[in-house]
């Protein structure tokens, strides 16, 4: 590498650092911004509240403060802001990147216009019809668009949105085709709205109400479930969330809010046009959301204002609006991933940092800084069983005679020419610790995936506590009392440890269907108890992504347990742990299993763990059950030694 190249590289690295490294996620990018000047989140939160409140008051008094001239722009900005917020419910909260949301915005606009023009509805009833129309359209589209994930979802929404636009465009008798629809009545507003200022206030109040409702939904347990889905779809399914149903609910809600926004826009402009359904309107809403900040609640609204007022200003001076907004978008996307609100929070945090210490000293003792967690990479967090009042009882005798808790009958799975799992039948007895071993490629993880419904089996069936659960979706199994951890750690990364367990505890009880208020105290206490059980109570507020690998495994166990599992499936629970961490983890699982009468079915490569821990062992080899019995029997089995143990001993 020559000198200039090195310089370029250093410059690039510095640039990357400045940007906040390559962010995988806007939320995380925003978090990075937040963390820069110490952990002054609480103060910054107050500052954010003050800024938001100021904004709300200023725009309420806008006609008085800046005269009626700004009202026309501000009214449009309010509606595009609400539209951007409805997009953000999908993009920012749920992680669904939609590119066709304008369809529901436009449908709301036409719903109001058609209800008033063709059916003579009173204005308020017509406006109330807008969210209904938007929601119904969004709900129906969900059955198509939710078949795709990520990029395909985005492109499907684009396709469905354009289909709706093209339909509106072609259906001239209803929508007026290219000309759109203009209100036939003198005013689309109720009688008490007389002046332009009145219509602005009408818009303002309806938007404020809608935003308040949206706020309650976003902060509710339901909102937590959506954030869980955003962070880790698979984990969400394995905490008992019927993900599709939550996604379609979010889509419907977003459609309703877009519908109100579109209806208000049509009333304010006295006109509904098919342009409102066009994909560039979706892009406009996304741009507003992005500029304002996707990681914060009011960000998209701020972005809507910024977009509309900047447009007003630029268009009045030049013809370069496209160029200007394009450059602004580039700048925000590359340099300020948190958007305007992220930047404001960053500013506030920087300005408030000196006051942070004063604030801390007078109020509360400092919580353990996340830095400590990083430093303690090798420290093993063992729970203190006595402290949490769960005395280890004498080893509960495994019920070897009763009905099995889990029973597999002739399970088979074929991938093309490879038979991954071949006619596997065995039983797991309640209260036992049951190991599955076998060389790589023996079909162990595939077997787990068949049991937990991640992939459908070709033949055979699975019974859990006597019920046939073959082909059950994961969330249904979780609700019946099964928990699972994965070979690769699988958590809600940006959520705190506490929220990881809380979400698991809440979703399995369907408490996440609640769209208002918070989680009940019972649930919160239960989630904290689960954290204590695995020794992570001091790290309750630390995001899962910042825990050490060993603690992440413990947290995954806590989340798997929080669903009140009676049977838990652990896939290479000790993978990637250091020897002391492995010992601690095994001791932890064993204690929990013995004290709670939990049945454990685990895949493991470490023979010391297997033989020191398991009551019973099933050996898989090339997809078939080679042996099944107590450890001593397995150890003595010559076939197993030949096929498996001998192999590993030679290898290691």
């Amino acid at each position: 590498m020559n000198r200039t190249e090195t310089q370029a590289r250093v410059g690039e690295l510095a640039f990357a650092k400045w940007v906040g490294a390559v962010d995988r996620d806007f939320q995380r990018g925003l978090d990075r911004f937040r963390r820069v000047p110490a952990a002054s989140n609480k103060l910054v939160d107050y500052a954010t509240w003050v800024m938001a409140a100021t904004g709300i008051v200023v725009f309420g008094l806008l006609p008085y403060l800046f005269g009626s001239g700004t009202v026309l722009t501000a009214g449009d900005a309010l509606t595009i802001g609400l539209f951007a917020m409805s997009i953000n419910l999908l993009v920012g909260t749920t992680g669904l990147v939609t590119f066709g949301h304008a369809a529901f915005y436009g449908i709301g606009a036409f719903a109001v216009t058609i209800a008033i023009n063709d059916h003579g509805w009173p204005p308020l009833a017509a406006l109330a019809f807008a969210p209904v129309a938007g929601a119904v359209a969004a709900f129906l589209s969900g059955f198509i668009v939710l078949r795709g994930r990520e990029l395909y979802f985005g492109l499907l929404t684009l396709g469905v949105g354009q289909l709706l636009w093209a339909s509106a465009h072609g259906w001239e008798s209803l929508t007026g085709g290219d000309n759109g629809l203009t209100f036939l009545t003198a005013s689309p507003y109720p009688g008490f709205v007389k002046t332009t200022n009145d219509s602005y206030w009408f818009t303002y109040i309806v938007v404020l109400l809608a935003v308040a409702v949206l706020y309650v939904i976003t902060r509710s347990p339901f909102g937590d479930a959506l954030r869980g889905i955003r962070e880790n779809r698979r984990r969400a399914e394995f905490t008992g969330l019927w993900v599709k149903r939550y996604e379609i609910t979010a889509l419907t809600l977003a459609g309703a809010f877009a519908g109100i926004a579109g209806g208000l826009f049509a009333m304010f402009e006295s006109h509904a046009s098919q342009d409102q359904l066009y994909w560039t309107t979706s892009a406009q809403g996304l741009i507003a959301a992005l500029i304002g900040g996707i990681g914060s609640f009011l960000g998209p609204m701020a972005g809507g204002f910024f977009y509309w007022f900047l447009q007003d200003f630029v268009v009045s001076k030049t013809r370069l609006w496209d160029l200007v907004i394009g450059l602004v978008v580039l700048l925000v996307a590359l340099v300020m991933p948190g958007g305007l609100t992220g930047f404001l929070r960053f500013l506030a945090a920087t300005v408030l940092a000196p006051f942070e210490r004063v604030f801390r000293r007078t109020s509360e003792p400092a919580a353990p800084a996340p830095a400590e967690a990083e430093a303690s990479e090798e420290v093993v967090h063992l729970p203190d069983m006595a402290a949490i009042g769960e005395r280890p009882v004498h080893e509960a005798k495994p019920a070897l005679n009763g009905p099995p808790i889990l029973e597999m009958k002739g399970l088979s799975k074929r991938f093309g020419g490879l038979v991954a799992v071949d006619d596997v039948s065995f039983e797991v007895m309640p209260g036992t610790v049951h190991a599955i071993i076998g060389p790589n490629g023996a079909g162990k993880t595939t077997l787990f995936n068949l049991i937990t419904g991640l992939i459908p089996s070709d033949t055979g069936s699975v019974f859990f506590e006597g019920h046939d659960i073959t082909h059950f979706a994961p969330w249904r199994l979780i609700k019946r009392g099964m928990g699972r951890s994965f070979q690769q750690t699988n958590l809600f990364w940006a959520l705190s440890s506490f929220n990881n367990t809380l979400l698991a505890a809440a979703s399995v009880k369907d408490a996440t269907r609640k769209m208002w208020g918070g989680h009940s105290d019972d649930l919160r206490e239960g989630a904290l108890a689960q954290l204590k059980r695995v020794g992570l109570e001091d790290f309750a507020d630390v995001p899962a992504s910042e825990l050490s690998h060993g603690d992440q495994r413990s947290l995954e166990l806590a989340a798997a347990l929080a669903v009140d599992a009676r049977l838990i499936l652990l896939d290479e629970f000790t993978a990637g742990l250091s020897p002391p961490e492995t010992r601690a983890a095994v001791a932890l699982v064993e204690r929990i299993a013995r004290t709670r009468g939990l049945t454990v079915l685990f895949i493991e490569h470490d023979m010391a763990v297997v033989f020191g821990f398991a009551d019973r062992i099933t050996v898989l080899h090339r997809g078939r059950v080679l042996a099944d019995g107590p450890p001593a029997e397995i150890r003595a089995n010559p076939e197993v030694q030949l096929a498996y143990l001998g192999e590993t001993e030679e290898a290691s």
Partner: protein
Amino acid sequence: MLLGTSGAIYGIQILSGLGSAAGLFLVASGLTLIFGALRVINFAHGSLYMIGAYLAITFSGKIGFGNYTFFATVLVASILVALIGLAAEVTVFRRIYQRTVLTQLIVTFAFVLIIGGAMRQVYGTQAKLTGTPPFLKGGVHLFGGSSVPDFSIYQIFLIALAGVVAIALWAILYKTNLGRDIRAAVSDPELLSYSGVNVRILFTGVFMLGCFFAGLAGATYGQQGGVDLTIDVQVILRAFVIIVIGGLGSLRGALVASILVGVVEALGTLWVPKASLVIVFAVLVAVLAVRPQGLFGTRTA
């Protein structure tokens, strides 16, 4: 006679559909190539296509529509578009490969706005008309009963060009070392970089190649008859539909889907003149409802 005539109408429509399918494939091939290697959906691909069309018109306005100058014009325009692609890749695009889908879509959309705005400043909003080089004038009579030729030479030329591009791309991807590297980069760029390949330059090269095809499509299919400043969005929507139906990143899929979309849209104009676009998107939604990963796509894409 009546049946014969309507049969001929369908035949003519299908042929003209194949003509636009060829043009659409030229656009979609570059788009799907870029997505396949870089995992970025480039909204600005249609804008690069538009630049290609305008550049071709500017040059031929200067040097005229001769048989040889036509090829020179097309080549120069395509290369210039590839160079514009180089500049965009080095300054912005390479910074978004690892970003979220949202950032990628919005950033490339920002380029649509910037390029559209810049083009309006340079060329104005008036549509530009073009001529046709002598050897591409006229048409052939495949179906009797009309004095007007029913299949233009230009369309035959486009179909031939699309064929050449398809074969060339296939040869590059599957018969050369470069193609092997590109295919390796698709599955694991990090691993490829450990085996001594400069992935950054490879990506820049792939991006330029994709842009070259965008320019080529613009200079041939795009400038046909005349251009205005809306062709970027018109063509990118169809190109999206094509690469999504075909399966993102699949060249074969792009070819099949181009024919499907070209012919369906041509026949659609015959059946329901107002709703041909509805039909295109309906085909998209129908295909994806059955195969969410597209015709030739893989689920992991």
